[in-house]
């Protein structure tokens, strides 16, 4: 497919804008020296992924990302930062390891291999249109996927109880 043909589709322009925003914000997450700014950049990255889900016809997943990830997880991170007194100032030297180049090299290798593999495997296969409604997803969750659904709710319950038990102050003898 020619690039001019590809860019002629308005959805691909939206995709490019969202992808550029997500990439930039992800870079901010891993490089900034301000911890709170990193968390807010993560929230923007997740919002970009929600836009992508809407483009792909996954309405319910998009709203779940906004509710759970942006709403709950980001707030949880902010609390964690406040409580552990992670250095929130501008300075702190101790946020990164001294040797970043090996890490960058590994990340670049991971990107090269996965991107090459997906381009080779899929070429320019188009994505079919189609929206999966929330009602359909709910039916599937309570019929075909009911066992994994119950298991994952149990995992969530165990994690919440574990979090409370770990984080509370000991009041034993």
């Amino acid at each position: 497919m020619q690039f001019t043909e590809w860019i002629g589709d308005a959805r691909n322009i939206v995709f490019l804008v969202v992808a550029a925003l997500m990439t930039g914000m992800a870079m901010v997450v891993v490089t900034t020296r301000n911890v709170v700014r990193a968390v807010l950049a993560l929230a923007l990255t997740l919002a970009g992924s929600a836009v992508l889900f809407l483009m792909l016809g996954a309405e319910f997943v998009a709203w779940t990302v906004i509710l759970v990830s942006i709403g709950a997880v980001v707030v949880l991170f902010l609390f964690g930062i406040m409580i552990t007194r992670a250095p929130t100032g501008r300075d702190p030297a101790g946020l990164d390891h001294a040797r970043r180049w090996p890490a960058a090299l590994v990340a670049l290798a991971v990107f090269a291999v996965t991107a090459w593999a997906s381009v080779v495997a899929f070429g320019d296969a188009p994505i079919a249109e189609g929206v999966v409604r929330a009602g359909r997803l709910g039916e599937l969750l309570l019929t075909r996927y009911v066992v994994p659904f119950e298991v994952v709710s149990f995992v969530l319950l165990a994690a919440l109880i574990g979090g409370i038990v770990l984080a509370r102050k000991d009041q034993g003898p």
Partner: protein
Amino acid sequence: MTVAQFLVLGALLFSIGVYGVLARRNAVLVLLSIELMLAAVNVNLVALGAYLQDGVAAGQIFALFVITVAAAEVGIGLAIVLLIFRNRASANVDELDLMRW
């Protein structure tokens, strides 16, 4: 829209997350980078689900499960970081050598 463009974006976000996990010292920031990697995986899952168009919406259901497990992981992970900080007054991953032999 092609599948490959979403998969390449997912690969890019995932590798940025890998860099963050490897380069960050503060445990909270390592957890943030893990969250980034999980978001990249979600993009991949939903894109492949839209490509396959199977009747059971497997990609989206898996993405929902990943979101749930990510929330559980953040809850537990932050509680552990909090506990370590309380005991050792530091949340830097390179100072946690309790289990090193």
